[in-house]
């Protein structure tokens, strides 16, 4: 099955800094989602981005489907951005999301 890898595994930022999180997937995908899992465990939808670029406030994401990777950009980070960021890929008719191992982000004041 498809493999999804994320980097870096851990990241510590000072408030106000920018960061880029990467997601590599081993095969073509029909769907790519980015989530933020907050400290209470809730998965919050960030982007549904099988290809192209999208922006939402301080966050943006780019998926290059032909090269099998996606990037999540966080600008002017805030302490509330802390948590785990997951990307998840869906391929073919399976309809199941295959999650990466996540990036644990800590934003310090």
């Amino acid at each position: 099955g498809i493999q999804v890898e994320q980097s870096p595994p851990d990241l510590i930022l000072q408030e106000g800094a920018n960061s880029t999180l990467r997601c590599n997937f081993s095969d073509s995908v029909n769907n790519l989602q980015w989530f933020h899992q907050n400290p209470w465990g809730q998965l919050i939808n960030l982007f549904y981005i099988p290809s192209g670029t999208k922006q939402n406030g301080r966050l943006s994401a780019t998926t290059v489907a032909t090269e099998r990777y996606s990037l999540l950009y966080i600008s002017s980070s805030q302490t509330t951005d802390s948590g785990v960021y997951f990307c998840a890929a869906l391929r073919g008719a399976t309809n199941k999301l295959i999650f990466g191992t996540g990036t644990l982000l800590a934003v310090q004041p």
Partner: protein
Amino acid sequence: GAGVSQTPSNKVTEKGKYVELRCDPISGHTALYWYRQSLGQGPEFLIYFQGTGAADDSGLPNDRFFAVRPEGSVSTLKIQRTERGDSAVYLCASSFDRGSEQYFGPGTRLTVT
């Protein structure tokens, strides 16, 4: 509007007992998914329903796990003869239709003692 809801939020049970976990999807969503998340890992797929039928149950770990969605809305995940290794957060997600964006509930934290 209302998101995906799950009950209970926490469940503690003894080894060998039977448990039921409930999921209420977003109204109008035809697809419903169950995932399981162990500590420090990403969620792992268990089962997918399209309408009332289980279209893909390849992620269920063994025959102690079963799920139903009798009226195409609420779903119940049932675990028989629970084992300590079943302890995890069980997440439910729904989407408008097959392959569209999935939205997750807050999860049920199951602890088997």
